[in-house]
């Protein structure tokens, strides 16, 4: 009789991951975790390299023959150009302070999502080709050759970083891992390795002024649509203007707010506010996008797209620029705009025409965030608010990464929230303000094909929302970023299904008491206002 096999010999099911060194563990392009390649026509539109049809799943990525030389030369140029990059390559001591701060690492456990190791992907090539120790000792000195597999690893992980900069808050040396990701992506772009969720919005923005590629008449008609909805809710007719020369202020919202809910409700709130205070502003069909996906492509592309806002401000002869509720837009404005396209000496330092407040911090960029503007109005009692209209909501606030960490907009949104609603609850300290967790879909990762990855990356944020839902009954997550408004609803639906997402100015619009308005029975979502029916009956 044959010997009976032991149970573990019957079927080989090993649930343990391979124990290979990170340098020897290849990338697995599992559907749901990676992003579609940039469309050739979009690359052609903005003159990006190597336009072709390809997919990350393909064995052959159709790279230029001399791709290795292009990348290494590109890295050499950038090391010479950006002192910060050379510092970031050299000074990391791998202390591990950043390791467990990345939402993708926390949610996935994938070591290459640790900021330190993600940076090592680039740093190892830097060591091998740009340091004496690496040239002599190779792998012993932490260096490795740039191969196609390394390149695929770069693509996978540099498009798996949302550039949220949470890790940099904890780095004792101040290494900004987002800057390393940006350089990584910039190098990949030199040989045509980019993602469609970034490149097509870039091409649209370059040609038509906004990510969605809406032409001027479409933009105006869409705004009319929102104006009609505002009239239905408030009986007040407002008339925003486009491309009006001589207006005091150029107002630039993110285009997502024009078309995609729940951003539309927030834009309605802002339009209502501007109407109520009689602001002399104009929108533009040329600079119709606050967001700048150039930031996720290359420094050159940031500059090209951002220049449109300044050019339009000059053409229209406005005094200063007011930006909408956008996230990464503010990193561009605050940290790059003035260097790249400034000085904007044809503009004035922003001054609120209602309160006389001079926004000194924007003396250089001449551009402020609508949240600062509204908080100042409330502080000076320039608007009447009825926070009871938001009584059906128990609200918490998600600090969007860039406004919080890149600009420091921490107090203003909270000040507004406390004035427009009566039930506001903070998430735990370690998950808000400078330490806020990313939505998991920033920096061009907000596509649908990588939903699984987004759900992983968004877990730390959702986990904190779940805490305030269970503790306080929170049912609304407010934010001030258009990408958040696109990515947080599916995230909430997966992890905390009874919490909805809104723009901060949606709550402002609900609470705003407008001159000549009819009694409100509906909120901006056309939902009955709490208590409105009872009052009517009475």
């Amino acid at each position, binding site marked *: 009789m044959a010997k009976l096999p032991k149970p573990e010999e019957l079927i080989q*099911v090993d*649930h*343990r*991951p391979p*124990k290979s060194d990170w340098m020897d563990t290849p990338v*697995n392009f*599992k559907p749901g*975790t990676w992003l579609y390649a940039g469309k050739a026509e979009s690359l052609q539109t903005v003159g990006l390299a190597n336009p072709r049809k390809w997919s990350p799943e393909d064995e052959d990525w159709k790279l230029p023959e001399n791709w290795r030389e292009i990348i290494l030369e590109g890295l050499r140029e950038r090391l010479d150009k950006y002192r910060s990059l050379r510092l970031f390559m050299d000074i990391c001591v791998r202390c591990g302070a950043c*390791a*467990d701060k990345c939402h993708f*690492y*926390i*949610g*996935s*456990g*994938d*070591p290459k999502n*640790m900021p330190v190791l993600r940076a090592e992907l680039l740093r190892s090539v830097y060591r091998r080709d740009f340091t004496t120790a690496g040239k002599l000792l190779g792998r012993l000195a932490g260096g490795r050759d740039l191969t196609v597999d390394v390149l695929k690893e770069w693509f996978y992980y540099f498009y798996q970083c949302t550039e949220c900069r949470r890790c940099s808050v904890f780095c004792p040396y101040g290494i900004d891992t987002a800057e390393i990701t940006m350089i990584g992506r910039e190098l990949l772009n030199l040989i045509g390795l980019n993602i469609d969720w970034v490149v097509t919005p870039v091409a649209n923005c370059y040609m038509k002024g906004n990510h*969605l590629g*809406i*032409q001027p*008449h*479409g*933009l105006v*008609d*869409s705004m*009319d*649509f929102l104006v*009609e*909805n505002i009239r239905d809710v408030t009986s007040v007719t407002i008339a925003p203007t486009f491309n009006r020369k001589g207006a005091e202020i150029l107002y630039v919202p993110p285009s997502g707010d024009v*078309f*995609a*809910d729940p951003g539309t409700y927030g834009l309605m709130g802002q339009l209502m506010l501007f109407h109520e205070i009689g602001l002399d502003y104009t929108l533009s069909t040329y600079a119709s996008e606050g967001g700048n996906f150039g930031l996720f492509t290359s420094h050159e592309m940031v500059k090209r797209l951002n220049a449109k806002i300044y050019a339009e401000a000059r053409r229209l002869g406005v005094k200063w620029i007011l930006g909408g509720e956008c996230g990464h837009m503010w990193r561009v404005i605050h940290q790059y705009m003035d260097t790249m396209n400034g000085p904007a000496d044809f503009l004035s330092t922003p001054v609120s025409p209602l309160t006389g407040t001079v926004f000194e911090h924007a003396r250089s960029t001449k551009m402020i965030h609508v949240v600062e503007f509204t908080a100042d109005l409330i502080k000076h009692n320039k608007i009447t608010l009825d926070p009871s209209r938001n009584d059906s909501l128990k609200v918490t606030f998600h600090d969007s990464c860039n406004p919080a960490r890149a600009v420091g907009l921490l107090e203003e949104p909270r000040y507004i929230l406390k004035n427009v609603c009566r039930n506001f609850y903070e998430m*735990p300290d*370690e*998950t808000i303000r400078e330490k806020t967790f990313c939505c998991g879909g920033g920096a061009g990762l907000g596509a*649908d094909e990588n*939903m*699984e990855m987004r*759900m*992983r990356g968004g*877990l*730390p944020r959702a*986990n*904190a929302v779940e*805490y305030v839902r269970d503790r306080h009954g929170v049912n609304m997550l407010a934010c001030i970023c258009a990408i958040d408004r696109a990515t947080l*609803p*599916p995230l*909430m*639906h*997966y*992890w905390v*299904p009874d919490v909805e997402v809104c723009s901060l100015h949606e709550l402002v619009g609900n609470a705003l008491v407008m001159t000549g308005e009819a009694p409100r029975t509906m909120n901006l979502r*056309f939902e009955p206002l709490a208590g409105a029916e009872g009052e009517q009956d009475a």
Partner: protein
Amino acid sequence: MENQECLREWLKANRDAVLKEWLACCFEVYPAGAAGFMQGSASSFANPVGSRTRKSIEALYDGLVQNIDTAKLQASLDLILRVRAVQDMKPSQALGFIPGLRHILQSRRTTAKNAAALGQDWPAAELWLDQLTLLAFDVYQACRENLHQIQLAALTKRCQTIERMIPAASGGDEPERDMVNAERERCKYGETP
């Protein structure tokens, strides 16, 4: 598991030791460094995967001891499997922690002082673990379906945005506006249009 007092008392007495071993088994699916982090003592906000896993298996273990109802078991399974359903692992890896518990209990009970008495009660525990495995299949699959519904809703929303752009470009009159508003109502996340 009913009327298996000997085994029940043994499970209660060995709770901490078994849970410690089970927790380590749960984290074997992650790369070594990550397993250490997840098993560590960081707060539930800094380490949600670790804290959800711990909460889940504690509740499941107590369920084995105390006969809790299926809905509570499902909720506890959801806690760990909702995470694993979106992580980079096969379904067999995601559910591997249940046979893991069987293995731990099996090797411990055979070396226990009262091994013979425990052996008599053991079939009831095995039955419970089998049922838990089946329940876990359902929960895991429900999470995956949830994920796919979300993807479908995201696609629908994108189409909805395009639909809104088309009437806008062609001069959006009242009926079209009503249509778009009605579409908003219809297409909410997780509700298949």
